[in-house]
């Protein structure tokens, strides 16, 4: 009982020094008055003083009593209430344990979810200027180009002409090979303006950020490491500053290490300034206004809102469009917008987190109703005790306060257990949230979360304590007069109302769980269009400098692919730019094209499609189906360009006509590609996303720097990693393999977050139903106990056992039916809010509603049945005799 010791100490400190001094002064002045009075009556000062002290008695004792009476009304009464409450709770261990368990579940679930919401949605970004950061986005809406990057020239214009921004920095992502003594590794590299970290407001953990002179042409190449890369790849080496690495045939020196903050726009291993990136520093990138390959992050001037920035940016965009009409074709449309970085970092997490928060709030409401129900039942048992206390003179307020003290004590203890549960689950919480947002690392049970848990606990205690405290206002003295049975009726009415609430809440939760589970099943059953089993995927990214021409790249990839195919256990192998459900491919890899014989009408935008590079064996390797025509082969080279399109492409761009034999050109007629086959659609960008229009061209034609290697294996795909590595070593030992996973893993991880959400909500719903069933059974069996005599009389007068069972069940189900109605109506309103979380199921899906109705009715029926059977077993003679 450390809480009590704490209170005892509190009592001591509240009697402040001010109190002691005032008491001292007051008692001394009393003595002085007394002495003066005695002198006035003729005593000598010495005699007067002695006499006054004598009549005063022990000063210490008087002070002690004063101290006691000062504290007695407030803290002593609380102290008494608490001791009494604790004693009472110990007397009812099963009640106490049950209440503590449900409260711990309810408050723990809320605390856990709140800790995520707090870290991810509520708290300011952990950057010094976090709330002023925006991302600038351009689109060509009429051309269906919704996420197009920015070019270096455009960033320059925005930077110089947008008054509401005090800085605009650029970012793009590259994969480079990093060489050090140990070998080659692939690093994801953020290429940023020199002042990038200063603008977003990140102070390096070690070393410095980039400086303007790092960004000069021919400046020595420098690197900043992310915290995770520094820890994982370099073992957190404290002397890493100044260490050198080889990248792109240049020596790079480490100048800084970032602190462990979430990185925006994405988590990278290392950062380099724009000048060090061989791609970005090329003349084409810096001069061509349409090379829109980078992102732009701006910082609002203090006090300026994002709307101002949007309209300022639009003005600049219109100015650019009229100055360079070639770069901004009117037919494609062109506009610019700005989004706050905070929203961008959390937009995927928001709907799921809010749905979970609502779920746990409902669970807590249900817990309150259930505990209130248990408490009323227990109060009926305590009716005599409370009535006795009233009769002995306990004030009305004091008894209500006593009951509230008990419920608050319980809820605080339950809350403490709940926080413990949330703390135990913190690893799971972070893993869960990491699927939605890079801010997951910030999740912690900190002061704010504890405060939240404390407030929720106290409110919970008040909520379930108040109902019983007030329900007993009138009948307090009746308890003595008529025995416990007289107060059964008001208690039962309150308990039935609570059952209505519990059933309604369970209904809403079950509907939520049902919809999430159905939507997950729909997602899992989606026809992905490919066969995921026995396929290994990995990425090979060539050294930018060593393989600086298409010929050199082809000279690498062709023998590499042949070498893999020769390895034992490999059925087929393919190269491509990406694979279905690949998380790391950007979505805006689509291009405009023209169709031979169908010149674009004046002012009409050209059609767009995803152009994908794939080696001829790609389709068979991942199990795609040829619908018409033929695959392309190695014979379809530069002299006779051939392509395979997917069904969506054929439908959208050729409608009724046969696309086979048609020719399309991605470069205004410089090259024409003949469509030779149609394949089925695959889920490229996500299970819930509609397939995009795709056109596959032979891999060798593109000569890209990096490729996905896909290998269909006879046995366990992961067992073939070594074979592929051996093949790679034979061609170029300095090339690393990265992102090794099986296609099956890719598919599973695409389902992981909807599965987790569905499982969590379903768990909460099951807890809710169990609690509700226990509540119903409790109320019905309570009423059977109260009515033993009445039932005995009925049976003595000729009621059959089945009539008694019918009556009990009917009366037990009455509040359930009301609860089902309320629940169905609320669920129909509430689920609409969650429609963004659902896939291929309506928020008011009738079969889900019917199923939930059935389940709850059945559960309620079962909960009523056992006490009803007990009622039927009552022996009328015994029941009457007991009276």
């Amino acid at each position, binding site marked *: 009982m450390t809480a009590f010791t704490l209170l005892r100490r509190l009592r001591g400190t509240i009697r402040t020094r001010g109190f002691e001094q005032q008491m001292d002064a007051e008692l001394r*002045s009393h003595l002085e008055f007394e002495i003066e009075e005695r002198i006035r009556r003729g005593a000598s000062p010495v005699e007067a003083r002695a006499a006054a002290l004598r009549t005063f008695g022990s000063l210490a004792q008087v002070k002690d009593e004063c101290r006691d009476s000062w504290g007695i009304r*407030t803290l002593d009464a609380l102290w008494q209430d608490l001791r009494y409450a604790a004693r009472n709770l110990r007397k009812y261990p099963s009640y106490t344990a049950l209440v503590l368990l449900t409260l711990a579940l309810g408050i723990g679930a809320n605390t856990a979810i709140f800790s995520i919401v707090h870290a991810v949605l509520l708290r300011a970004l952990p950057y010094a200027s976090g709330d002023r950061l925006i991302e600038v986005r351009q689109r060509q809406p009429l051309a269906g180009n919704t996420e197009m990057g920015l070019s270096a020239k455009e960033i320059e214009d925005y930077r110089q002409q947008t008054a509401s921004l005090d800085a605009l920095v650029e970012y793009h992502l590259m994969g480079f090979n990093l060489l050090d003594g140990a070998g080659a590794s692939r690093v994801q590299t953020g290429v940023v303006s020199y002042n990038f970290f200063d603008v977003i407001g990140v102070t390096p953990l070690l070393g410095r950020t980039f400086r303007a002179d790092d960004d000069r042409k021919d400046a020595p190449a420098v690197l900043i490491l992310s915290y995770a890369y520094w820890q994982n790849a370099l073992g957190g080496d404290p002397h890493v500053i100044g260490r050198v690495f080889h990248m792109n045939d240049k020596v790079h020196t480490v100048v800084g290490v970032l602190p462990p903050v979430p990185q925006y726009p994405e988590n990278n291993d290392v950062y380099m300034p724009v000048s060090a990136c061989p791609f970005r520093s090329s003349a084409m990138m810096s001069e061509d206004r349409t090379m829109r390959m980078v992102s732009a992050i701006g910082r609002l001037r203090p006090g300026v809102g994002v709307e101002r920035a949007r309209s300022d940016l639009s003005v600049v965009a219109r100015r650019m469009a009229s100055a360079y009409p070639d770069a901004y074709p009117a037919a494609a449309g062109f506009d610019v917008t700005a989004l706050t970085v905070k929203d961008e970092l959390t937009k995927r997490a928001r709907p799921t987190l809010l749905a979970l928060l609502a779920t746990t709030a409902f669970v807590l409401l249900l817990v309150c109703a259930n505990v209130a129900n248990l408490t009323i039942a227990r109060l009926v048992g305590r009716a005599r005790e409370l009535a006795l206390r009233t009769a002995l003179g306990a004030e009305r307020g004091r008894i209500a306060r006593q009951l509230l003290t008990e419920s608050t004590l319980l809820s605080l203890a339950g809350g403490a257990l709940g926080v413990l549960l949330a703390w135990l689950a913190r690893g799971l919480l972070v893993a869960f949230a990491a699927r939605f947002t890079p801010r997951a690392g910030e999740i912690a049970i900190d002061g704010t979360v504890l405060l939240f848990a404390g407030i929720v606990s106290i409110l919970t205690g008040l909520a379930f304590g108040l109902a019983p405290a007030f329900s007993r206002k009138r009948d307090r003295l009746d308890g003595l007069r008529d025995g416990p049975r007289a107060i059964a009726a008001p208690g039962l009415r309150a308990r039935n109302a609570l059952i209505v609430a519990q059933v309604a809440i369970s209904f809403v939760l079950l509907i939520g769980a049902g919809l999430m589970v159905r939507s997950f099943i729909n997602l899992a059953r989606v026809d992905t269009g490919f066969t995921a089993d026995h396929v290994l995927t990995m990425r090979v990214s060539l050294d930018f400098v060593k393989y600086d021409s298409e010929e050199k790249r082809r000279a690498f990839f062709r023998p590499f692919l042949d070498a893999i195919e020769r390895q034992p256990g490999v059925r087929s192998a393919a190269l491509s730019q990406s694979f279905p459900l690949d998380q790391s491919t950007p979505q805006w890899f689509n291009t405009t094209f023209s169709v031979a014989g169908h010149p674009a009408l004046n002012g009409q935008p050209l059609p767009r499609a995803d152009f994908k590079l794939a080696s001829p064996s790609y389709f068979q390797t991942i199990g795609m189906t040829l619908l018409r025509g033929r695959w392309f082969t190695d014979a379809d080279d530069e002299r006779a360009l051939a392509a395979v399109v997917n069904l969506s492409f054929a439908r959208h761009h050729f409608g009724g006509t046969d696309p086979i034999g048609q020719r399309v050109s991605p470069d205004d007629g410089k090259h024409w590609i003949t469509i030779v086959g149609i394949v089925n659609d695959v889920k490229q960008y996500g299970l819930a996303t509609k397939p995009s229009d795709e056109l596959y061209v032979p891999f060798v034609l593109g000569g890209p720097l990096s490729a996905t290697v896909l290998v269909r294996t006879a046995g366990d795909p992961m067992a073939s990693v070594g074979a592929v590595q051996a093949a790679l070593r034979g061609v170029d030992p300095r090339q690393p393999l990265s992102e090794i996973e099986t296609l099956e893993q890719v598919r599973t991880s695409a389902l992981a977050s909807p599965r987790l959400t569905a499982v969590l909500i379903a768990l909460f719903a099951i807890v809710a139903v169990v609690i509700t069933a226990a509540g119903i059974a409790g109320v019905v069996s309570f009423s059977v106990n109260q009515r033993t005599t009445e039932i005995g009389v009925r049976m003595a007068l000729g009621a059959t056992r089945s009539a008694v069972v019918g009556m009990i069940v009917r009366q037990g189900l009455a509040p359930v039916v009301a609860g089902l109605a309320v629940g169905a109506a609320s669920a129909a309103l509430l689920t609409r809010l969650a429609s963004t979380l659902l896939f291929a199921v309506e928020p008011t899906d009738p079969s889900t509603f019917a199923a939930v109705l059935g389940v709850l009715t059945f559960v309620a029926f079962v909960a009523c049945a056992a006490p009803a059977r007990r009622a039927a077993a009552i022996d009328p003679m015994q029941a009457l005799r007991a009276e």
Partner: protein
Amino acid sequence: MKNPKSDLLQGTLDLLILRTLASGDMHGWGIAQRLQQVSQDVLQVNQGSLYPALYRLEQQGWISSSWGDSENNRRAKFYQLTRSGRKQLAEETATWERVATAVARVLQQA
């Protein structure tokens, strides 16, 4: 609570203090003097009861206190009756009179 007898005496003292303060603000010593005077030396209030009673009454909100100067310019803590103190005084006086009458009746007739 431990000793019902002292509770009864305490209640009576509370009533007497409230009544005394009803005729004007007073410091602790003044209250004691006044009680002694008015009761013609029958009621002699011990400081060990007076001050705890004053503190208790202040905690209950029936009286409030402030520091001021006495008639012979000595700093002293003065007590005054609050609104709820007046109400309490009225109620307790009524109860007291009823009980006193009842007790008197019992003593005369039993």
